[in-house]
C-alpha cells in the first residue's frame, strides 16, 4: 500500500497485467514515443506520460507505437483480440472516437453476437475524457453514454486511483470489449493504492458516502464535486448518500434503487451531456422502478446543451460545480 496518483495506478495496472499475461499488448500513438528516432526511446510514454516505462520492460513487440490511424489500429486490436491476444488500445481523447467509431460500435461491439457467439473480443480501449484544460469542444467531451448505448460494449469511468487500478485490471481480464474512460483532470489525484494486483468487478457501484437524506449519483470527476457539495450540505444538516456506479455499462441500478428507496430523493451529477446522457438514463430508470418511493422530482446537474468553449470562465460555467449540486439537493429536499 502506498500513495499513488491516478496516472501511476493506471501504469501499475498495465505493468502487472503485462507481466502476468503475455497476451496483453499495448498500442497507440506514442504509447512509447520516439520509436525509430535518433533521440531517446520511450520519450513520450503515452498521452500524459501514463504508459512511460512499459516499452523498456516489455519491448516494442508488445508496446507498439502507431501512426495517427485510429481506425486501423483499433481495427487491428479487434482482430488481435479475436485471435487470442488481449490488446489495450490507447485512444488519446474520447473525442477521437469519431474517426474510429465504426470499429468500436459496429465491429467490436457486434462481433460476438453477429457471428453467433463463436468469438470473444477481450479488448480494452483506454481513452481520456473531460473538460478543464481549456482545449475546446473537440478535446474535452465526456460522451461515454454514447458507448453505453451499444449492447456488446462495457464502459468504465473510474473516479480515483484505487478504482482506476482495480477496474483497469478487471477490464483487461474481461473477455469483452471495454471502453475505459480516464478523466484528464484526475491524473494527478492521489490516494492509497495497494501495490499488489486486485480486481474491482465491472458493474458494482461504490458507496462513497452514507447519509440517508438524499441520494447523489455521480461518476468520475463529478464524484469529487458531489463530495464537496455533501461536505457543505452536511454543515446545513443535510446528509447525502453518494453512489459512484463506476461503470455505465453494466450499470449497477440495484445499488442506486436501494439508496433511493431509502431516501426518496435523487440528484444525478454528471459531466456528459444534458440530453441522452447519464443523468437522463438514471433518472428514467429510477422514475420507472422506484416511482412509488420518490418524494420529489429527480434533480439533474449536468453541463448545458452546448459545445465546450475554451475560455476559462466559459468552461467553468460549463462544468458542473458544487454550488449547482447544493442547489439541486436543496431543491429536491424542499418538495
Amino acid at each position, binding site marked *: 500500500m502506498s500513495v499513488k496518483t491516478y496516472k501511476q495506478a493506471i501504469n501499475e495496472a498495465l505493468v502487472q497485467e503485462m507481466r502476468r499475461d503475455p497476451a496483453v499488448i499495448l498500442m497507440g500513438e506514442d504509447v512509447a514515443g520516439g520509436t525509430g528516432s535518433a533521440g531517446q526511446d520511450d520519450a513520450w510514454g503515452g498521452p500524459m506520460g501514463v504508459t512511460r516505462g512499459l516499452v523498456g520492460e516489455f519491448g516494442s513487440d508488445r508496446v507498439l507505437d502507431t501512426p495517427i*490511424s485510429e481506425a486501423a489500429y483499433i481495427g*487491428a486490436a479487434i482482430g488481435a483480440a479475436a*485471435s487470442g491476444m488481449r*490488446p489495450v488500445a490507447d485512444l488519446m481523447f474520447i473525442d477521437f472516437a469519431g474517426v474510429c467509431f465504426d470499429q468500436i460500435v459496429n465491429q467490436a461491439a457486434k462481433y*460476438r453476437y*453477429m457471428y453467433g457467439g463463436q*468469438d470473444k473480443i477481450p479488448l480494452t480501449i483506454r481513452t481520456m475524457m473531460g473538460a478543464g484544460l481549456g482545449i475546446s469542444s473537440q478535446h474535452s467531451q465526456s460522451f461515454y453514454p454514447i458507448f453505453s448505448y451499444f449492447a456488446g460494449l462495457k464502459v468504465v469511468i473510474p473516479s480515483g486511483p484505487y478504482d482506476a487500478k482495480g477496474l483497469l485490471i478487471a477490464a483487461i481480464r474481461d473477455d469483452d470489449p471495454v471502453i475505459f474512460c480516464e478523466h484528464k483532470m484526475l491524473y494527478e489525484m492521489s490516494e492509497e493504492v495497494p501495490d499488489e494486483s486486485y480486481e474491482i468487478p465491472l*458493474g458494482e457501484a461504490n458507496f462513497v458516502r452514507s447519509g440517508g437524506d438524499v441520494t447523489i449519483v455521480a461518476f468520475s470527476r463529478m464524484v469529487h464535486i458531489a463530495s464537496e457539495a455533501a461536505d457543505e450540505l452536511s454543515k446545513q444538516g443535510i446528509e447525502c448518500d453518494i453512489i459512484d456506479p463506476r461503470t455505465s455499462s453494466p450499470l449497477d*441500478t440495484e445499488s442506486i434503487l436501494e439508496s433511493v428507496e431509502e431516501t426518496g430523493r435523487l440528484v444525478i451529477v454528471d459531466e456528459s451531456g444534458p440530453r441522452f446522457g447519464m443523468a437522463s438514463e438514471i433518472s428514467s430508470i429510477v422514475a420507472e422502478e422506484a416511482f412509488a418511493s420518490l418524494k420529489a422530482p429527480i434533480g439533474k446537474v449536468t453541463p448545458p446543451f452546448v459545445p465546450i468553449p475554451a475560455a476559462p470562465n466559459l468552461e467553468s460555467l460549463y462544468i458542473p460545480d458544487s454550488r449547482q449540486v447544493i442547489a439541486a439537493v436543496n431543491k429536491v429536499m424542499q418538495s
Partner: protein
Amino acid sequence: MQSINELLAAYRSMRTMRDFEERMHVEFATGGVPGFVHLYAGQEASAAGICANLTDKDVLLNTHRAHGPAIARGADIFAVAKEIYLRKGGLCRGRGGSAHLHDPRSGLWGANSGVGSGVALGCGAALAARNQKTGGIAVALVGDGAINQGVVSEALNLASIWKLPLIIAIENNGYGEATTVEYASAGKDLYTRAAAFDIPGVQVDGHDFFAVSDAIEAAAARARCGDGPSLVEVKQLRYFGHFEGDAQTYRPQQEVETCRRETDCLQLFRDVVTAGEFIGETELDSIDSEVADLINRVYAEAQSAPYPADDELMQFIYASEYQV
C-alpha cells in the same frame, strides 16, 4: 505447381461456388431468400486461387460478397446455406446472414460493414500470428469500391510499417454497386496504390486460377518469411448484379455475356488442365454431377431447416458476465 489432387480440388471448389450461386440466383428470383444477397459468380478463380495457398493457421477475411470465399475456404456448405436462409444450424446461428459468413474454425472471418474494415482486422490477425509465432498469415479481401474507404489506406500503411504477414487481395470486379472503378478510383490500376505505402503490388487476371494462385503463392511466401505485406489486384467481372434484384442498367448487356463466353474461369481452368495428359473431361464432368447433386441436397436441407429458437435472441451478447 499443384498436384492432380489439388487441381481437382480447385475445380470442385470453383464448380461448387458457381452452382451454389446459379441456384441462389434462381431461388432469389422466385422468392424465399431473405435480406441482401450479393453473388460471387464469375469471380470463383479468386477465392479458389487464394485458398489453394492457405493453411489452417491462416485467416481469410471475407467481404459482403461472401458465399464463394466461404465455400472455397472450406466452411460447411450446409451451414453456409442455412446462414443465408437465416436458419438454425447456420454458420452464425442465423444472425449475420449472407453478407456475414464467419467460420473461425475454418480460418474464415466474416465481413463487416462498413466495407474495407477487413483490412484493419486482418492487420490484427497478422499481428497476433506473428506474436504467437503460429506461422499463420492473413489475407484480406477488399473490393474495388471499398478500397476508397479511409481505413483501407490506414491499414495498408500500418501493415507496411509493422511488416505484417498480410496479403491484401483487391477483388476488382469493375463496380462498386453501380459505380465503375474508373469513375470512383483515381488512377488506372488499383495495384499501384501499394507503392504509396511501400508495399509490392501486382495485378492478375482474376478469371485465371493459375495467375491468382501464383501471385498469392509468392505473396504468402513473402509474408511467411517476415518480409511483410503484399497487395494483389485480381481483375474480374461479376456475372450478376451488385445484389440480387439489381436491374444492372448501368452495364452494357453484352459485358457479362462476352465474359461468360470467352473468359469464364471454369472453362479456362478446364482448358488448361485437360490440355495435359493427367486430367480428362470425364473426370471433371463427374465432379460436375457430384456437385450438382450436393447443391440439391444443400438447398433442400437449408430451405427446410427451422429458424433459430426464439430464446436465442438474448444469447451471446457478452462472453463474460454482464449483470445489470
